[in-house]
């Protein structure tokens, strides 16, 4: 059905909001990223010709590394989140016991409400170099104050942050899959695990993909987790941006980082979606 001209009017409030709050500031950001920066002065030089120098600077491996680390840790955490959250979501969606379902939902929502900062300091106090559980680091073959363990801690912190949202998203995904399909598979001789891996998982691919992308977006834009748990060893692009903007007032460089991040994220979202749709055409096509 084609929207009528009147229907387009409905887009006006949302459009204004999006234009005013997103497009205009982003446009200004893009403009700022093309300005020249002179050390010691706040922001870019509006009266000088535009330049790509701020972008060229980011090709330096020292900077590229920030991007790589951010995306690598973000992808890993998002994948871990799917692995941990799927069983939780499956049980919550399929259990005949209402108490269990409510308990899981309550726990996930409580996790969402708990302040991230409080959770992160809790992790730091428990597993950090001075915490009572610092011995855990030895299981990873390292010490609690090492750089490698800082990374593990950042991952745990991010996992805490995204797990409830991924699990809640996946509950909806599983609920949308007809439970008769698993029963049909079981009646045909498949144990429950086979029914889940052979029938539920392939049909859940679109939902898993969205959950992954949500988690990924939340991870790579994260600021507070590396700030608190990274102990200066693990820094994300957001932290780099913050330093640019607030500590040395290099607005053009910060803006360039922001724009690159935006472009890379879009690229990953669309690229990944296209790949998954190609690999699972059937799963992507249903619903």
């Amino acid at each position, binding site marked *: 059905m084609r929207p009528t001209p009147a229907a387009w009017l409905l887009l006006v409030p949302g459009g204004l909001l999006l234009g005013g709050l997103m497009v205009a500031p982003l446009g200004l950001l893009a403009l700022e990223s093309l300005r020249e920066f002179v050390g010691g002065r706040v922001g870019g030089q509006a009266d000088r010709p535009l330049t790509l120098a701020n972008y060229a600077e980011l090709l330096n491996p020292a900077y590229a590394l920030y991007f790589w680390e951010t995306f690598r840790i973000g992808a890993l955490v998002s994948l871990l989140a799917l692995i941990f959250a799927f069983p939780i979501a499956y049980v919550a969606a399929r259990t005949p016991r209402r108490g269990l379902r409510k308990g899981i939902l309550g726990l996930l929502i409580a996790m969402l409400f708990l302040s991230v900062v409080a959770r992160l300091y809790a992790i730091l106090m428990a597993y950090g170099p001075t915490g009572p559980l610092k011995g855990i680091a030895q299981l990873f073959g390292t010490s609690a104050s090492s750089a490698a363990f800082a990374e593990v801690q950042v991952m745990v912190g991010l996992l805490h942050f995204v797990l409830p949202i991924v699990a809640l998203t996946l509950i909806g995904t599983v609920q949308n899959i*007809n439970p*008769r*399909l698993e*029963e*049909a*598979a*079981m*009646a*045909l*001789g*498949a*144990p429950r695990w*086979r029914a889940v891996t052979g*029938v539920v998982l*392939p*049909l859940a691919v679109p939902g898993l993909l969205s959950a992954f992308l949500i988690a990924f977006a939340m991870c790579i834009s994260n600021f507070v987790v590396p700030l608190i748990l990274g102990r200066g060893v693990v820094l994300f692009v957001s932290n780099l941006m913050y330093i640019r903007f607030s500590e040395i007032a290099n607005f053009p460089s910060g803006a360039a980082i922001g724009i690159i991040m935006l472009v890379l994220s879009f690229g990953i979202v669309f690229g990944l979606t296209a790949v998954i749709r190609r690999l*699972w055409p*059937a*799963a992507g*096509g*249903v619903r």
Partner: protein
Amino acid sequence: MTASQPVVDIQNISKRYGRTAALDRVSFELKRGECVALLGPSGCGKTTTLRILAGFERPDAGVVAIDGRDMSNARPYERNIGLVFQDYALFPHMTVAENVEYGMKRRGVPKAERERRRREVLRLVRLDGLDERRPSQLSGGQQQRVAMARALAPNPSVMLLDEPLSNLDARLRHDLRHELREILSAAGTTTLIVTHDQEEAIAMADRIVLMNHGRIQQIGPPRSLYERPENAFVASFLGRCNWFDGVVESALPDGSALFRTTEGLALRVRLPDPRVGAPAPSGVAVRPERLHVVEAGTELDGDFNRLPATVTRLHYLGADLRFDLTLPEGRRLEAVVKADGRPLPAPGDTVAVAVAPADCVPVAGDLPQ
């Protein structure tokens, strides 16, 4: 395993959900090659019975045996059953061929044998050449056949069908009824069909298990349920019936019994169940097609109860005529007669209604409203 041993033997299963007793001491068996319909109104426990048989629910009490082995605690995948769901539950991400081979794959049947059997069952359900389609590319009727083929392929001990035709339109449902029956006979499987459609049950089943409120009301071939209902529920659920409430007064020398309706009308009826402990009849059920409508004063050959009645309405149904009649005592009756071209009485005319004592069946229990 002897030939006479039932394939499925359900003994005294009960199941409660909170305060509702979904099943109350249900027992029945399926003999080899037999097609049994589990029939009853909505909420009577049909699906629950099927799910207990399939192993998706545990009964609170009672035993389920399949092929002589106690399966009460076996998991669904250990039971060797073929299940067809109301919505078919075909795997949407697999082709028809993959759907049909799924069960054999799980049982470790080698590839060549799987493909041979797949072609065989798809031919049996008359669905050749669609192997590479996905379920979403099939019509409802075709999906139904794939669901049958998928369940039949691994040679299950028993086929369980839950309302297999209820998702199809009336015409197709009617056609598929017989075809489904033929497929099942050709495959030689033992089958339990759950349905709330009495016509479907009568057309397809060798025997009917009729349930109400979690209890079995009567088990028997369709004809015996229809002609010799054991209680008022059976009489009224299967087909239409006229109902006279009253009491059986005495046995008569000619082998019938004397029945007195609550308004005092005397009827000669079939002898009630003579078994000791059989509940006393509370009424008499008469099928509309067993009533004869004749002109007042006509002589009749044979042994009939004869009641004067007034025609209130006449429905012309093509092959049949349906009369709505009122007795002088105010009781309403319904009669169905063949439309054979005779002149028809008009509403308001007085006629005679004749019914043979053998067609007046005394039954116990209350007539459900």
